[in-house]
């Protein structure tokens, strides 16, 4: 009888061990997954009571938690909310998080494994949990210039430091005030959320990285890079550049924007073709090189891959998969199915500026614990050598010429050599074209590369040209950085 009881004792022990094993799996190994669930109100409530770390630019907070005496202990506040909203995102009780607030949530609330040691100290010394700070790469002056430049327009600006890939400015308008969503007044937050989502101009969308646009003539930089890299062309090579280029397989010809031939010549050099942004010349080059060479060159600049991991829903720029000849000609001038984000076009300019080496763009400079110990510091990382330094210097010279003598004149800065390229992308007849400008300066030692996109502005349809609308904004942003 006793041996049976002993066996039952072992069985009972196994039952208890099973309970312990199951709870261990749940609480030690699955905890992070369960805590991260969207419907986990308990974690959300608790995190709302945590002294969340600030998002900094230099040492100035653009998002920080201030003590609050309502049902939560802290209120998230955003200084100059709309200026930085595309990057900081928002922190809402009802509607979750966006931007850096979303992607760096664990670091900001202090639950990231990298801060585990600090958290244990907090537990032992009975200090409340405190989040780490996230310092951005943004440059306050550049960001402000970008935001002000976009006033009254729909569009985006991205500025990059070519040598490192640090993002110096990322603005998108219309923007929104994240303070409205971070409020503890549920009714107001609900109404604000409804309005923002109903708005046809999509203020919650970060146009700099989340939306794709036809890059138009700014893509000619990629075509020119492919041409120069092929060895078949030099900046002085002459190409067929009539006012109207008949295309194979179709009755619709490729025409120049102004309806004339290229700078008075039907056989202009590549430099002249870029200066006046001649569609026919680049259409000819594109068909000559073929779609694969163009796609390959685009990929080296970052097309076809997600360029930035520090923001949510970053769009991937694309070059069409299998275009026929006329479609290739259209693609070579940034039309047809070529799509790019403003960030991508800034990466093209930055790549050319950095002797052909494209750096991985990044927004987070470092993460620090509340007692200012550095948890992580982002190091510049090379993506691709998109073009050789020789080709880069040839392209730079051509772009300097564009600003000095061509369509990019409005982007010129006195005393500084600016290299740039304009773009005007046609979409459909019933909406204005997209105006682009991408540039870097100073041309001999680039400190900043910038891309500006204007999706919509309150000007007459025919008045839209990258040079006139977008270039002045780029100029302001570059000046903001260069004057420092």
């Amino acid at each position, binding site marked *: 009888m006793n041996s049976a009881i002993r066996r*039952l004792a072992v069985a*009972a022990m196994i039952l*208890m061990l099973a309970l312990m094993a199951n709870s261990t799996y749940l609480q030690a190994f699955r905890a992070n997954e369960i805590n991260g669930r969207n419907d986990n109100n308990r974690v959300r409530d608790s995190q709302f009571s945590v002294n969340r770390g600030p998002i900094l630019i230099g040492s100035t907070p653009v998002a920080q938690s201030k003590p609050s005496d309502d049902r939560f202990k802290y209120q998230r506040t955003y200084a100059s909310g709309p200026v930085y909203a595309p990057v900081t995102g928002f922190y809402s009780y009802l509607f979750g998080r966006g931007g850096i607030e979303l992607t760096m949530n664990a670091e900001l609330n202090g639950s990231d494994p990298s801060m585990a040691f600090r958290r244990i100290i907090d537990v032992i010394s009975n200090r409340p949990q405190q989040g780490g700070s996230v310092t951005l790469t943004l440059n306050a002056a550049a960001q402000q210039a970008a935001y002000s430049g976009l006033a009254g327009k729909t569009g985006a600006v991205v500025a990059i430091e070519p040598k490192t890939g640090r993002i110096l400015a990322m603005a998108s308008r219309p923007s929104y005030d994240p303070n409205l969503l971070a409020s503890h007044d549920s009714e107001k937050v609900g109404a604000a959320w409804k309005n923002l989502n109903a708005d046809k101009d999509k203020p919650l969308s970060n146009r700099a990285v989340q939306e794709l646009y036809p890059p138009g003539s700014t893509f000619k930089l990629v075509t020119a890079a492919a041409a120069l890299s092929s060895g078949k062309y030099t900046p002085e090579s002459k190409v067929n550049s009539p006012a109207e280029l008949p295309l194979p397989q179709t009755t619709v010809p490729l025409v120049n924007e102004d309806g004339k031939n290229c700078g008075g010549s039907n056989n202009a050099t590549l430099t002249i073709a870029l200066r006046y942004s001649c569609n026919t010349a680049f259409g000819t080059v594109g068909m000559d090189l073929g779609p694969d060479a163009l796609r390959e060159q685009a990929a080296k600049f970052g097309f076809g891959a997600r360029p930035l991991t520090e923001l949510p829903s970053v769009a991937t720029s694309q070059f069409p998969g299998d275009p026929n000849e006329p479609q290739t000609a259209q693609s070579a001038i940034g039309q047809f199915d070529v799509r790019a984000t403003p960030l991508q076009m800034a990466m093209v300019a930055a790549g050319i500026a950095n002797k052909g080496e494209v750096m991985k763009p990044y927004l987070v400079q470092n993460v620090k614990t509340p007692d200012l110990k550095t948890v992580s510091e982002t190091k510049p990382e090379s993506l691709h050598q998109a073009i050789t330094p020789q080709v880069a210097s040839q392209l730079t010279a051509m772009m300097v010429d564009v600003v000095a003598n061509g369509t990019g004149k409005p982007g010129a800065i006195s005393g500084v050599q600016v290299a740039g390229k304009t773009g005007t992308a046609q979409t459909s007849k019933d909406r204005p074209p997209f105006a682009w400008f991408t540039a870097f300066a100073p041309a001999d030692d680039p400190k900043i590369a910038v891309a500006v996109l204007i999706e919509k502005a309150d000007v007459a349809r025919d008045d839209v040209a990258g040079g006139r609308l977008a270039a002045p904004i780029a100029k302001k942003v570059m000046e903001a950085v260069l004057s420092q």
Partner: protein
Amino acid sequence: MSIASTSVIQIIPRTRRGVELLLLVIAIAVSVGAYVNIGVTVQNAVPASTGYYAAGIGLLALIAHLALRYRAPYADPVLLPCAVLLNGLGVAMIHRIDLGLAIVAEARGNTPKAAAAPQQITWTAVGIVLFLVVILVIRDHRRLQALTYTAGLAGLVLLVLPLIPGLGVNLNGARIWIRLAGMSFQPGEFAKICLVVFFAGYLVVKRDVLTLAGHRFLGLDLPRARDLGPIGIAWAVSLGVLVFESDLGSSLLFFGLFLFLLYVSTERAGWLIIGGLLFAGGAFFAYTTFGHVHRRVTDWLDPWAIDGGQVKLGLMGQAWGGILGRGLGQGHPEATLYSQSDMIISSFAEELGLTGLIAILLVYTLIIERGLRTALGCRDIFGKLIATGLAMSFALQVFVIVGGVTGLIPLTGLATPFMALGGTSLVANWAIIALLLRISDQARRPQTPAAPVSDETIAMAVQKQ
């Protein structure tokens, strides 16, 4: 088969009441510490009620301890402190959730519900009274054998009670509660004790017959077909509980109990096989036939699908607790439905973490294993069976409810022994502990009646050698 042939470790007859007192002091200190901790973190002050709480629980434990010194001096010294610890921690957690619920109600502008912790303390007192009755009135557990069939009938009546219209109430999908004079009771908790007595008494008489071997199959001696009657009846009754009271937990508990005792009394593993197959068949039949059983299983397979489901909320609480826990008063156990009763284990897991949860499970394990130790040491078969039955009922109950709460098995509405809010279960568990102590007193008592030897005398005797 006889008791003499199996080796029982010779127990040196020591009363160990001093050890029990020391352990009790620790158990009370931990419970009061938890209570104070909760007050400090939630209300920023040592609660004014600390004195009452400490005095209440201390006094009750002291009375129980003195009763043992008086009437069961050789009783196991670990069982009472374990029960006091679980009971004390349970009251502290119920109090903590009272505070949490009051804060939530206040934030929403509602009037908070009446606090549950004082109720639970009152029930603890009732439980200790029953404990005293068992210790003082039942001087020898063997006397219960005379009540075998009375206990069987009482158990059956208690089981069926919730089915009587006007008396039984449906709660959380199960019909295992009755409402009487404005209060709710769970008669199943007492049915459990009655049935253990009945099974033990019945098997003492019938075990010889049931041990006779029938066919040999796959190396196992299967019982004779004509002896299958009792197990068939037990199976039918437990299936009836499952079908009519919608309670998988109670059903498993009653059938499991019978099966374990049948196995212990006959030492035939064949009974376990037959019983296991019967239960599996019954459970599968219920799963395919009854919607509520089916739903319990689907809820278990994907707890995340149900919005605001108690298991889902409980699992989130556990995950939020992590390894070290949020700290008493610093989690949100009140966010889980039934966090004071069915889900109290997840409340502990949230605030005390995996570490605290495992500590609590170890205390349960101690009670179970001390109970089985008592069964091993007991000199009569009836006592052995009762101790085994009570200890295994404890094991099954803890496994079924904790497993359900933590998502190991489908959730059923059994009470977490000593911790969950609920009078019936608490009182019944105190009776179980009293019975185990009563049996252990006899098991550990020197065979030839002698005067109790104190620890000091033994120590001196050892030194002299």
